């Protein structure tokens, strides 16, 4: 059955290539198009800002011929993005980077792009489509980094609460498995409560305030970026502030920098610089380098010591992102090829 699907697509591809067979590639430098599903939150805006910055520089450096960024209208709608992608396909870019609205709905459209000979890289998501390269952060890494930091922050023993993410979502299930494993390895850490906070500061504050009176002394909150709300809840209740995991947004980092959050706190989140990482990865693929179909990049981690450096580099309404360069991406790709992703060094703290 799948074969017939493929066969039909190939048939379509040959037909489409009639449209494509225009001018042969003039220069070796690729043209790049980025398709983003929506622009409705700080993460996506930071992603676009980081990409535009890096792509402008790459264009000046002669790595790419030109680039265009396109944000689909609407609220993360797959059909709007399909329409947008098809309009982009008319332009026949050499590299197509996609931050998709859905892991499945774009597949026929992306297949069409592959068939036109375009290098397609999807980031911040995944897809089953064979011809597409995936550049992503691992949710396991995210959970491992933030949980380990909190466990270290409370000195390896004490009471913790687990603040869980979006109820029932696959990333949350993956993250929870990692958290449970790490807690098993640290038997002195006792879990005294579990909440679903959707990794959202306001929801965490609300959930915690409702039950805080019934909780024993809490040393740490293991979570995925709701630290600001957690700290505020403990402050409101007049309790000792625990070690928490913040979101690396400008606002949360400043709040943390003002002395809120116990020493040893951390800020972790998936990296808005993934778009840039995908750009350099795709350029390498375009230039003929062998790259694994899925490449893992590290999430953003802000530790206690580097916090003030990060605060200087992140705007108030931004999310912190790694500043990927060609060299850094090459190093990370090498780690991916060698299977050493977990040990790979993190990029340096960005400077603005």
């Amino acid at each position: 059955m799948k074969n017939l699907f493929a066969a039909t697509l190939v048939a379509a591809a040959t037909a489409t290539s009639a449209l494509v067979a225009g001018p042969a590639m003039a220069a070796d430098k690729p043209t790049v198009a980025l398709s983003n599903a929506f622009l409705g939150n700080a993460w996506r805006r930071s992603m676009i800002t980081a990409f535009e910055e890096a792509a402008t520089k790459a264009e000046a450096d002669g790595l790419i011929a030109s680039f265009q960024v396109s944000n689909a209208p609407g609220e993360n709608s797959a059909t709007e993005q399909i329409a947008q992608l098809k309009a982009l396909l008319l332009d026949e870019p050499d590299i197509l980077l996609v931050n998709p609205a859905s892991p499945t709905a774009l597949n026929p459209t992306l297949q069409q792009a592959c068939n036109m000979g375009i290098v397609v890289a999807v980031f911040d998501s995944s897809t089953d489509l064979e011809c597409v390269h995936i550049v992503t952060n691992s949710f396991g890494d995210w959970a491992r980094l933030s949980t380990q930091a909190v466990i270290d922050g409370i000195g390896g023993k004490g009471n913790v609460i687990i603040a869980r993410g979006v109820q029932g979502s696959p990333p949350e299930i993956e993250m929870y498995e990692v958290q449970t494993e790490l807690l098993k390895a640290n038997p002195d850490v006792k879990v005294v409560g579990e909440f679903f906070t959707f990794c959202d500061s306001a929801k965490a504050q609300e959930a915690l305030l409702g039950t805080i009176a019934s909780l024993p002394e809490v040393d740490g909150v293991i979570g995925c970026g709701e630290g600001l709300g957690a700290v505020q809840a403990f402050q409101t209740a007049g309790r000792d502030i625990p070690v928490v995991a913040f979101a690396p947004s400008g606002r949360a980092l400043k709040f943390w920098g003002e002395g809120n959050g116990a020493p040893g706190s951390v800020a972790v989140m998936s990296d808005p610089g993934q778009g840039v990482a995908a750009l350099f990865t795709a350029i390498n693929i375009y230039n003929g380098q062998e790259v694994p179909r899925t490449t893992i990049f590290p999430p953003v981690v802000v530790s206690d010591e580097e916090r003030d450096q990060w605060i200087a580099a992140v705007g108030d309404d931004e999310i912190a992102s790694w500043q990927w360069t060609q060299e850094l991406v090459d190093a990370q790709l090498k780690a991916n090829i060698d299977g050493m992703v977990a040990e790979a060094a993190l990029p340096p703290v960005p400077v603005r």
Partner: protein
Amino acid sequence: MNTAILQQAQLTWPRGLGRRVLPGCLTLVAMVLILIVCGMIQPRIWSQNGLTLIMSPIVALAIASMAQMVMMSIGDIDLGIGFFVGMVTTIVATLLRDTPVLGVLALAGAVLAYALLGALVQLRAVPSLIATLGASFVWLGLGLFVLPVPGGMAPDWLFAYAFWKPPLSIPAPLVTMVAATALTWFVTRRTGLGVRFRSLGSNPVALTRSGSSLVVTRMLAYAMVGVLGVLAGITLTAEIGGGDVNAVPGYTLTTVAAVILGGGMFTGGRAVAWGTLAGAITLGLLTVLLTLLSLSSNLQPAVQGFIVIAVLAGRLVVERMSR
């Protein structure tokens, strides 16, 4: 009655026709303008492949808008069409692919459910807004039950359709859209049933006096909405290659906008199939236009909204003039 005035009225443009057709014509002009601008930026649009590329994402929206148009012609509004279309994609990508008989039965059941919804609205005097909003959660639940996460795969004949190339370089999406619109136009404007739909919207008392059953008429209208919704779901499955109940919640309001752009009214009694088609294509092409214009990311949503408001404002002016 003054005969002079009567004669004068007969000589001028028939007012009802003007009010019905002019807004749609205005939208048609907007649509053609957008197409021309797109074509100036990207001449590759003017080919069978180019038109197929930009039109294929609009097909499902256009057919869903037909469904909404039928609903609005009887004076109701469907707040569940987005999730209904989504639910249909989940059925098409699973049941219809694996066990076609069951799939067809499930889709027929969905149409029947719509007809029953119509009976509920008529018999219990539930506002259609509430009934269809309630139904939307049922569609969502059923869709999640069939496919908890997006997936499944469209039947092979749908893939074959997606890559169908009609002769004479006619883009396939256009064929589908025009066929669906012609069907809707024929039923709503050229049959007795269509007359009953429209009088249910504009003058239910007259409909009762003429001896028709309000319940049966409303049930038939809702069934037609269901049939068009199923068609929209099938074409959407071809586009996204699988099923996803959350694929197009936005259709609920976009289809209303398409009908209004096409000359429809919230108060019912007006069936404007061709105008609605122009409205749906205009709304669908906006994404293409904005992508081709490569405007700054922050400006795009604002420009999209501005174009819609401009067309609607134009309609207001046209209606004033034709009064």
